[in-house]
């Protein structure tokens, strides 16, 4: 176990150590203490590693994560796991805006609530939120799944492409070109798998599915009110 106390060590020290890991390294457990809201904690990890962060972090924690398992025992600032590629990022508290922005793979789990624009521009990441998400979540979401066990704020899935949205609670409003879709067995199976992976006990059949109506994929003057 390698320990980094961010009251003593710098974020640079931590990230440099993560980037210096090689496939041959056997000690891949990292403990990060006293993050105290610092930004860019554990960004750019490339290899399998277990990184536990004890406390609250600022912007972009676990940004562009590849293969590592990152657990934040606290709240996270904006852009947690932005553009993550693979691996898993778990937040035991709440997440600020842009959680999982443009993520391309892996699993992001938020045990609390996520603020606005959760999953904005997501490109393949799967995001599971035990609580609720704020307005404009899954804006321009391209691929992957956003699971919301609580409620969703205004304009969910605005200008969505092919991402799949599952919400158990209420949806304040849907954004442009986002519509409710049938929950088929295939979707129940996918959702059940995501909930299981996230460690959340919930019945997938209680969720409703939302996705793109695909009316904005090519410009049509008769849909001009949607633009």
């Amino acid at each position: 176990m390698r320990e980094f106390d961010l009251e003593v060590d710098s974020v640079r020290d931590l990230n440099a150590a993560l980037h210096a890991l090689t496939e041959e390294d056997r000690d891949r457990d990292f403990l990060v203490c006293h993050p105290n809201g610092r930004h860019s904690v554990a960004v750019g990890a490339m290899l399998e590693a277990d990184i536990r962060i004890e406390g609250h972090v600022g912007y972009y924690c676990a940004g562009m994560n590849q293969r590592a398992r990152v657990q934040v025992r606290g709240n996270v600032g904006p852009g947690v796991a932005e553009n993550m590629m693979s691996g898993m990022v778990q937040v035991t508290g709440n997440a600020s805006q842009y959680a999982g922005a443009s993520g391309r793979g892996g699993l992001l789990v938020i045990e609390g609530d996520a603020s606005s624009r959760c999953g904005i521009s997501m490109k393949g990441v799967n995001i599971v939120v035990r609580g609720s998400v704020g307005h404009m979540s899954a804006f321009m979401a391209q691929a992957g799944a956003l699971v919301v066990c609580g409620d969703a704020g205004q304009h969910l899935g605005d200008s969505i492409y092919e991402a799949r949205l599952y919400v158990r609670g209420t949806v304040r409003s849907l954004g442009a070109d986002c519509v409710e879709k049938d929950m088929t067995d295939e979707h129940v199976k996918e959702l059940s798998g995501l909930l299981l992976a996230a460690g959340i006990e919930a019945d997938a059949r209680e969720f409703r599915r939302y996705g793109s109506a695909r009316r904005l994929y090519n410009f049509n003057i008769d849909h001009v009110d949607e633009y």
Partner: protein
Amino acid sequence: MSVYKRAQRPSATFPDHVLSEIHRAADQGIYEIRGFGAKRRVPGFDDLLFLGASVSRYPLEGYREACGTDVVLGTRHAKNPLRLKIPITIAGMSFGALGANAKESLGRAATAMGTSTTTGDGGMTVEERSASETLVYQVLPSRYGLNPDDLRKADALEVVVGQGAKPGGGGMLLGQKITERVAGMRTLPEGIDQRSACRHPDWTGPDDLEIKINELREITDWRVPIYVKVGATRTRYDVQLAVKAGADVVVVDGMQGGTAATQDVFIEHVGIPTLPAVRLAVEALKELRMHRKVQLIVSGGIRSGADVAKALALGADAVSIGSAAMVALGCNKPVYEDDYARLGTEPGCCHHCHTGACPVGITTQRPELEERLPPEVGARRMRNYLATLVLELQTIARACGKSHVHNLEPEDMVALTVEAAAMARVPLAGTDWIPGWRE
């Protein structure tokens, strides 16, 4: 028909092209989307002249005495700043907007000339990375194709906030250009109209930008320079905020800058010309005492060695070319004229990059059109063009008595028009008058 000519005169308010646009809009119900840059005339580098050496200055011998052209970019924070042999770089143009052969041509030529190329929306292709010895990787609002592996392969990063052709607007790539490969790189379905976001998904404002830049530095271990590119609008503020946010290099793109596809109303009516933008950017850097510490790259309508010289004389460290590079590859060349006609245009007027049916094989993904631009041919043309720009640049610098092109200065120039004098803050030719300037 009236025999009196007065009755036949066209309206100045509604000339032919305006009438035609109203008719088109009434027929189609959508704004015009097109490629290329602004077609209206705006004050520009043509409105400036150099004062060659004479009795009070002595020139350098054009064919013998050295005139340096090298430039170092990213000296502020990066462990590995870029060392370029010439101060002319290739601007970001996406794979998708351009075909693979065009991108490879640009990369090969830039490598041969010792300068850099830049990726674009859609990310980095293997061909581009292998062809370009020095490659700048753009971090764009869409984040299409963005990934940390390519981030680490890049020689510099460019956070794109805006583009001269459309500051405040996102990109467009119409469905006809979204082929299987382009769609795959962007994680989008084939054939749909792709709308790039106009702002980044995970930061808003200069304070966030500073944190974002810091994250990119952390991921790349502070190795490569980080540029911030802005479209020229509120240039003084944007440049200063970019510096405050930690940029190593600021790229200012004037309204003459090109695009692969954007609304015509955006191209022609948003942003300021490159000429005042250079001066504003330099003043902004000087106010912060960061001129030459944070390097300035200027783009937007650079066409000749004279344009390069004027941008450098106003205080830029380097320029970037996009549209002119495409023209060098063959854009608007009078060949394949039947194909131009099929697009409803002709050589010299074509701006149909958005259609994917580029007659000269540059802005297309269609193999039969791309074959018209073999990479070795494109690279030769581009290399020739870059070499010509450098020779022209050195010709002017030597004539002004400069042993390095960065020694050119505003004092070497005068303006032909009152507007250019005011914008560039150089005197109107034959006077010592700089409109709007007080000591």
